[in-house]
C-alpha cells in the first residue's frame, strides 16, 4: 500500500515554475513509468517523491506523511549513480551501514542483493572496475538492499546496451512484485515493457495519468500526441 | 581533546626524572664546543643536567626575561648589568674571557694588520670602503662592534658595510664568501672550518677583551625557576674545578677561554698568548 499524493505542488527555479501547480493521487504499486520530453519535470517529480527536498508550494505525502521525513522507506537511484571508491560489496552494504543494520543481518542481505544482481563473483573487486551494465546492476542492488517500500529510478538504462537493459528490466520486474517502482524514462518501448501505470509530463504539468494498457492502446491528441510522435 | 593531550605528552615523557636546568647562552660558547666539554664535568659532580639554548646575547636575555631559562651565560657586560638592575637577574658572576679578533681577506686591502688599535683598524676599513660584515643581531659581538665604531668616532654607514643579522658562524661564512672584514670572537674563529681566503689580521688591545658573565634568573620573579640548580652551576663555574675545566679547554692545542679567577694567564698554560690578558700586553 503506497499511496502517493501531490497537493497543489509547485517548484520554482529563478522565479519560473518548473513544475506544477500539480495535483496527483497515485497508488504506486507495480511499475509506474514517467514519460515526457527533456525538461518536462520528470526528474523534479522523482526528487519530490523521494523527499530529496520539499516543494516550494504544496505538499508531497506518502500515506499521509510528508515525503521528506520518510526517505528511509524508499530508495533513489540516480541517472549516473555514484560509484563509491570501494569494493562492490562495500557499495551495496553502504545503505545498511547508514541505517545501522547489525553486522550479521547486513552480511546476509548484501549477499542476497549481490546474488540478485548476479555480482557475487565481483563482490571484492573495486566498483570502478565494473562494466557500465554491471555498475547499474550494482546501483540497483544498493537501492534494493534496504527493502524499500518504493524504489525511484531516474533513467537507469539511459546508456546501456540492449543486453544490459534487459537484465536491469528483469530485476525491476522482480522488485515490482514486492515494492512500488517509479521510473523516469525516455524509452517508449521500455515503458511499454515495464509499465502498469503511466504519467506523462509536458512543460511541468501532468498531460496524462492512466493505466498503461489503455495508454498504449488508444490514440492521443494534443501534447501527449505531440510527444509520442516526436514533435516536442 | 584529553586523549590528544595525553598522546602529546606521551610523545616525550622519557628522561624527566633527572635534575636539570636550562641555560641560555651564546653561540660562541656552544659552537666552540666549550660547553660540551665542561658541562658533563659539572653533571658528573652534581648530577644536574644542563640544557643549553644557544642564541645571541640579545635573545638569551629576552628568553631569560620571559622566565624560559634558569640562567644565562653571555658576553655583554652593560646588558648583563641592565638585566640585574631591571630585577630579572641576581648574583652576576665573572666566569671567563677571551678576546675579539678582526678577520679579513689575506691580502688585507685596508692594511689593518699595521693598525695600533681596533678603532684605527675600523677607521682603515671604512676609509678604504672595504666590505665589512656586521652580525647585526644584537649579540654581544654585534654590540661590541658598535661600541668600537662609536669610540673611534666613526659611523659604520657606508656602502661596503653589510648588516647580515645572523649568528657568528653564518656571518663568517658570508665574510668568507665576500672577502669581507669581520669582528669575531676568537673561539668561533679558531673552530671555524670554512675559512677560505680569510685570515686573522688584528688582535690585542683593551677594547678587544670579551668577558663572559653568568647571571641566574631571580627566582622571586618566576616560581618555576630551578634556583638551586642555577646556583649550583654558578658555584661550580667559579670553583677551582670549573675554572680549571674552562682553562683546560683546547682546540687544536689552543686555549680558547681564560678563566676569570685564575689570573695571571701564564699559569693557565697560555703558550700561544691567545688568552686576552696576554693580548693586552700588545
Amino acid at each position, binding site marked *: 500500500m503506497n499511496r502517493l499524493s501531490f497537493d497543489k505542488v509547485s517548484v520554482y527555479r529563478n522565479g519560473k515554475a518548473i513544475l506544477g501547480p500539480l495535483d496527483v493521487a497515485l497508488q504506486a504499486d507495480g511499475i509506474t513509468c514517467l514519460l515526457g520530453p527533456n525538461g518536462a519535470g520528470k526528474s523534479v517529480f522523482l526528487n519530490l517523491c523521494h523527499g530529496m527536498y520539499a516543494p516550494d508550494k504544496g505538499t508531497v505525502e506518502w500515506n499521509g506523511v510528508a515525503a521528506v521525513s520518510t526517505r528511509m522507506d524508499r530508495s533513489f537511484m540516480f541517472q549516473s549513480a555514484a560509484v563509491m*571508491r570501494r*569494493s562492490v560489496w562495500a557499495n551495496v552494504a553502504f545503505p545498511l551501514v547508514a541505517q545501522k543494520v547489525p553486522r550479521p543481518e547486513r552480511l546476509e542481505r548484501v549477499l542476497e542483493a549481490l546474488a540478485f544482481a548476479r555480482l557475487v563473483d565481483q563482490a571484492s573487486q573495486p566498483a570502478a572496475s565494473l562494466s557500465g551494465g554491471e555498475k547499474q546492476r550494482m546501483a540497483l542492488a544498493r537501492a534494493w538492499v534496504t527493502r524499500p517500500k518504493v524504489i525511484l529510478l531516474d533513467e537507469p538504462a539511459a546508456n546501456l546496451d540492449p543486453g544490459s537493459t534487459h537484465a536491469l528490466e528483469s530485476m525491476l520486474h522482480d522488485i515490482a512484485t514486492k515494492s512500488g517502482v517509479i521510473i523516469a524514462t525516455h524509452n517508449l518501448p521500455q515503458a511499454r515493457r515495464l509499465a502498469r501505470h503511466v504519467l506523462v509530463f509536458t512543460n511541468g504539468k501532468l498531460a496524462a495519468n492512466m493505466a498503461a494498457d489503455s495508454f498504449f492502446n488508444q490514440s492521443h491528441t494534443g501534447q501527449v500526441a505531440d510527444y509520442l510522435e516526436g514533435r516536442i | 581533546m584529553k586523549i590528544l593531550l595525553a598522546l*602529546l605528552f606521551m610523545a616525550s615523557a622519557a628522561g624527566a626524572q633527572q635534575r636539570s636546568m636550562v641555560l641560555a647562552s651564546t653561540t660562541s660558547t656552544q659552537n666552540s664546543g666549550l660547553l660540551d666539554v665542561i658541562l658533563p664535568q659539572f653533571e658528573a659532580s652534581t648530577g644536574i643536567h644542563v640544557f643549553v639554548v644557544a642564541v645571541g646575547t640579545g635573545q638569551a636575555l629576552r628568553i631569560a626575561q*620571559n622566565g624560559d631559562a634558569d640562567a644565562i651565560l653571555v658576553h655583554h657586560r652593560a646588558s648583563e648589568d641592565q638585566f640585574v638592575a631591571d630585577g630579572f637577574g641576581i648574583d652576576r658572576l665573572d666566569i671567563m674571557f677571551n678576546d675579539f679578533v678582526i678577520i679579513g681577506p689575506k691580502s688585507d686591502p685596508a692594511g689593518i694588520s699595521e693598525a695600533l688599535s681596533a678603532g684605527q683598524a675600523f677607521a682603515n676599513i671604512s676609509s678604504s670602503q672595504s666590505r665589512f660584515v656586521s652580525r647585526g643581531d644584537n649579540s654581544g659581538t654585534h654590540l661590541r662592534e658598535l661600541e668600537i665604531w662609536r669610540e673611534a668616532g666613526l659611523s659604520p654607514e657606508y656602502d661596503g658595510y653589510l648588516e647580515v643579522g645572523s649568528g657568528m658562524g*653564518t656571518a663568517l661564512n658570508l665574510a668568507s664568501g665576500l672577502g669581507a672584514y669581520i669582528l669575531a670572537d676568537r673561539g668561533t674563529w679558531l673552530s671555524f672550518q670554512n675559512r677560505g681566503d680569510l685570515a686573522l689580521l688584528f688582535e690585542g688591545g683593551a677594547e678587544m677583551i670579551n668577558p663572559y658573565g653568568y647571571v641566574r634568573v631571580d627566582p622571586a620573579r618566576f616560581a618555576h625557576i630551578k634556583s638551586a640548580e642555577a646556583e649550583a652551576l654558578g658555584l661550580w663555574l667559579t670553583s677551582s674545578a670549573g675554572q680549571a675545566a674552562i682553562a683546560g679547554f683546547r682546540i687544536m692545542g689552543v686555549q680558547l677561554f681564560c678563566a676569570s679567577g685564575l689570573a695571571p694567564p701564564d699559569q693557565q698554560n697560555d703558550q700561544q698568548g691567545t688568552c686576552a690578558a696576554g693580548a693586552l700586553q700588545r
Partner: protein
Amino acid sequence: MDTLSAAWFLLIGMDADLLAIVSLSLKVSGFAVLYALILGAPVGAALAIWSFPGRQVLIVVFNSLMALPPVVVGLSVYLLLSRSGPLGDLGILFTPKAMIVAQTVLIFPIIVALTREAVKPVFREYRGLLVSLNASPFLVLRTVLWDARFGVVTALLAGFGRAVAEVGAVLIVGGNINGLTRVMTTTIALETSKGNLELAMALGVVLIVLALVMNALIYSISRIGLRFQEVRE
C-alpha cells in the same frame, strides 16, 4: 664527491648521536602530521561539504596560512608556551613537545586545504546518494574522508615534507638543545654556522634519502588506492 662519500659514511656509520637526531626528526614531524591530520582533516572535509556563513573567508584564510613562514609560527608558539605566555604553566618550551606543537600549527593549514581539495570531487559524486540515504552529518564526514583517503595521503605527505624540512619553528621553540631537541635541520644549520659545510651537506643528503624512502613508501600505498577510483570517460 666529498659530500656524497661523507653522507655515505654517516649513513652506514649511523652512530648513536646521529640516530637520536634522525629519530627525533621523524618522531616530531610524525606526531605533528598525526595531530594535524586528526584536527585538520575533518575541518577540511567540513569546508568541502557544508556551506555556512564565513566559509569562503575561512577557505581564503587557511589557504593564506599555508604560506606562513615557519619562523613566524615558531615565534607565535614561543610566545604562547613561554613562561610569560598564556600556556607557560605547561612548562613544555624547549622540549620536543613544543616542537610538535609548532609543527602541528605549521602544517594544519596544509592538511585543511589539501583535504578540502581531495574531498570536493568525492562529495560532488556522493552528494545525491548521501542525501537520498538520509545520512547523518557524521556518516557523511566519515564516508567522504575515507573514500578520499588517497588524496588525504597526499596532504599527509606534503605536510610531513614541510614539517621535516623546516628549521625556523623548531629552532625557536626547541632551542636546538643537544641530545634533547636537536633535529636534522637544526643540526644542519648549526654545522653550517660552524663552517662544517661538508658535514652539513652530508646531513642534508641523509635527510633527502630519508624523505625519499618515506615518500616511496607512502606513494606505493596510494597506488593501490587508484584502482578504486572510477575513470570516467
